[in-house]
């Protein structure tokens, strides 16, 4: 019924004129409180049932690809923060990996592990928001407020590493600006000890909750075939039963060293997407524990003086350091000619960077493969035939972030 909702309704009536008076158009958005971002959906409704949906995007388009053509490679990190701002460190590190691939440099093992810890913390924080919001949109706000405390703990750790909380600008091309501080170690240890208890509470609150299950099972389903045809990746694809994860298929940052599984769903509905994220948080915790236990000693950045600001003391006393400092600040560092595609498993799926360099100081062309942009075009198909309350939880469960959608 879902695919042919409109034609089924039409068939029940003798002519289109007859139903004209019964259908109405509803503007869901652009700034609707339940959509958590600027998305406009023009819905054709028959009572509470959605017959047809058409979405408009681009309300916060900020021309990141064009801006990138005028910025040097270091400065682009701040643009990537602002795409999926729920898990900014993953975007930052994804971008750094792209440039490092182009430079062909070697990254110390310690950097890899530090990056894994930060990226998995970011994934947890992303999933906390997403799952908390699904529960909230299904009528239970307690879970979200409860989880926000945990997100704060993660943000405190970001603050220790880079000084910022939301738009992190985490790390540098080649590694990190500074090593983990003693306070960070303390915060991480506390988090690893306390968070599982909270997460278990949240799981118990929702996973077998009758109301929650009634609201989410069969809401906004999509088949694996359609999901692949649309280009889905990440939790939304895994909820349909396809076990594709960039961390396993194409390991980066030494992900091959860690032992974790890829949770998958079966039906691709809202409940499955929720459950896949629930499980992924446990897996991320496992990864963090392994990475932290085995954190190697060594330098916290690669030997890339052309991209890495030297210590201030060196700048004052060492001629080479002064030259590199000048070159970095004045954006005079060039990268080799070439083109690369590099991707990471973002909070939402495969976040890709296609970079073409003409050997200059700025990218010749930079294209972001933004997973949210890919998902959102399937939204009308997923909500057609369902109720409007299903449309709200479906949008949340797809974790469409306006910043990444519009880039």
């Amino acid at each position, binding site marked *: 019924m879902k695919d042919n909702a409109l034609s089924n309704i039409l068939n029940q009536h003798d002519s289109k004129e007859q139903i004209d008076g019964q259908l109405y158009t509803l503007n869901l958005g652009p700034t609707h409180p339940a959509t958590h971002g600027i998305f406009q959906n023009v819905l054709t409704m028959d009572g509470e049932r959605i017959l047809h949906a058409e979405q408009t*995007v681009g309300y916060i388009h900020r021309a990141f*690809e*064009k801006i990138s053509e005028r910025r040097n490679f270091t400065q682009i990190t701040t643009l990537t923060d602002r795409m999926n701002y729920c898990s900014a460190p993953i975007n930052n590190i994804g971008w750094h990996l792209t440039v490092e691939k182009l430079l062909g440099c070697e990254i110390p093992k310690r950097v890899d592990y530090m990056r894994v810890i930060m990226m998995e913390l970011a994934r947890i924080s992303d999933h906390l928001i997403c799952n908390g919001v699904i529960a909230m949109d299904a009528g239970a706000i307690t879970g979200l407020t409860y989880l926000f405390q945990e997100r704060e703990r993660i943000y405190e750790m970001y603050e220790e590493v880079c000084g910022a909380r939301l738009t992190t600008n985490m790390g540098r091309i080649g590694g990190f600006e500074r090593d983990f501080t003693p306070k960070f170690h303390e915060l991480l240890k506390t988090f690893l000890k306390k968070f599982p208890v909270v997460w278990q509470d949240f799981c118990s609150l929702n996973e077998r909750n009758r109301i929650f299950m009634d609201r989410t099972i069969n809401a906004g389903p999509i088949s694996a075939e*359609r999901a692949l*045809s649309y280009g889905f990746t990440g939790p939304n694809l895994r909820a349909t039963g396809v076990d594709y994860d960039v961390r396993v298929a194409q390991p980066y940052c030494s992900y091959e060293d860690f032992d974790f599984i890829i949770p998958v769903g079966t039906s691709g509905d809202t409940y499955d997407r929720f459950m896949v994220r629930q499980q992924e948080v446990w897996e991320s915790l496992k990864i963090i524990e392994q990475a932290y236990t085995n954190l190697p000693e060594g330098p916290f950045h690669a030997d890339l003086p052309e991209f890495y600001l030297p210590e201030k003391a060196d700048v004052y006393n060492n001629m080479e350091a002064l030259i590199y400092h000048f070159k970095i600040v004045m*954006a005079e560092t060039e990268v080799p000619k070439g*083109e690369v*595609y590099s991707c990471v498993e973002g909070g939402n799926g495969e976040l890709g960077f296609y970079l073409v360099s003409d050997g200059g100081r700025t990218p010749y062309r930079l*294209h972001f*493969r933004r997973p949210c942009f890919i998902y959102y075009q399937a939204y009308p198909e997923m909500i057609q035939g369902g109720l409007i309350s299903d449309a709200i939880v479906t949008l949340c469960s797809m974790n469409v972030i306006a910043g990444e959608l519009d880039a």
Partner: protein
Amino acid sequence: MTNDFVLEAITREFPESVISHDTPYDFLTLEIKKEDIKKVIHHLKDSSLQINFLTDICGIHYPETPEKEIGVIYHLHNMMTNFRIRLKTFMTRENAEVDSMTDLYAGANWMERETFDFYGIKFKGHPDLRVILNMEDLGYHPMLKEYRLEDGTRTDKDDKMFGR
């Protein structure tokens, strides 16, 4: 699946269509004739190569080479073997039109709309080719290299000293 194996399979099937090939950073990249791009992508999807996941479509502009000024770049993926391939096709500015992939991949719809929005490339057979991220009345395609990032009429900004 190796780069050589896939390259040979494509050149054997479409000897006339492949203009050039390369493997920058170990990523097989082929330049395909504009008329044949859909044929090749269809073949990659349905043949035993199973390169059937469309990762990305985007445009590129090279104003210095008028006969290959506008390009469309396709990234495709075989998830089973984790094999990725990049296909490119180039065209002149006046004739910036290429076949749409919407009947092969549902996801191509918005990717092509975005490419049209930014570069003005028309996709033949696209069901709804409208701009997507920019305003409908913008009237030009802003990612083309002739449009500067900043407002060219401003005189209070001069960053030529910064090497940009």
